[in-house]
């Protein structure tokens, strides 16, 4: 099944987001070997060059490390993964709060809503 990607945003950025999510959520644990570009390109139904570009981006951020003899692995640096996790959580919370504000909720009402939903 092809990955569900939007056509109106650069595909490589969406691939970066998606693979980051898979790493942060533990679907690919620290140190885990990642599939090859071709395998993943076929799975996602995207161009291999685009996936290559996404991997290059992930390598730049240190989340993915390339070993010449052993392909690509998720970093073993759990601190780095945790930092990214917190960053993503922060972004999501901010988006949620912004939307609630647009709907006319005060911070206190938003908190109450959140507590009710989480229970």
């Amino acid at each position, binding site marked *: 099944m092809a990955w569900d990607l939007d056509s109106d945003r650069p595909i490589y950025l969406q691939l970066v987001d998606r693979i980051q999510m898979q790493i942060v959520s533990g679907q690919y644990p620290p140190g885990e070997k990642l599939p090859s570009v*071709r395998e993943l390109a076929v799975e996602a139904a*995207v161009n291999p060059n685009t996936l290559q570009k996404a991997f290059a981006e992930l390598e730049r951020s240190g989340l993915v490390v390339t070993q010449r003899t052993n392909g690509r692995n998720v970093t073993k640096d759990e601190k780095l993964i945790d930092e990214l996790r917190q960053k993503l959580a922060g972004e999501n919370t901010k988006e949620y709060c912004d939307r609630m504000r647009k709907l006319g909720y005060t911070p206190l009402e938003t908190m109450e809503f959140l507590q009710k939903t989480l229970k």
Partner: protein
Amino acid sequence: MSDLVEIANLFQSYDGRRNILNDVSLTLQKGRIIGLLGPNGSGKTTLIKLLNGLLQPSGGSIRIGGLEVGTATKSHVAYLPDRTYLQGGSRVSDILALFQDFYEDFSVEKAGAMLESLKIDPSRKMNQLSKGTREKVQLILVMSRKADLYILDEPIAGVDPAARDYILSTIINNYDPESALLISTHLIGDIEKVLDDVVFLKEGRVLLHSSADYIRGAFGKSVDEYFREVFAC
């Protein structure tokens, strides 16, 4: 990346008056999947025929791998025409044998394996197969060559979505950094995620040649939406 195809100031006219292609200059690089996009009558098929040496240009030049298009380049170009040229009464196995005789770079093993994965029986005749299956057989024949340039003219027109997915995954699976793949199509939405670059042709001229992700980033639109905007009538 090195230039595989160099098209310089290309003109093509059938009647000496109206230019079907009007001063087209374009370079295509190895390792890229390029979409050749344009409305009907924009010159896509004419350009493809010129790349294949099926037409002589009225002006300008085309070089593939440094060689002027001609007998020498034909063996480096694998072409899927928009219309079939295979005899309906021939068996798939006969066509495999024909390709093996005809093209030095054809791998009958590769074609056989792809046919088997689709459970297509080589003893069947072409006219006994459904349209979608015929399209798949023809794509398999083309992709089983080891060419420098693959040209697919409307490879997904008129096939069902499942066959379309198969065709797209075959294209991705056979991706080779040493060759380029040019796909002409109207059905941009279905194919744009596999394209590196797009070329928009309008009335015989190149309107745009850029990376697909550049269009998405710069305009916040899919290639399909952007195409509809540019060619809105």
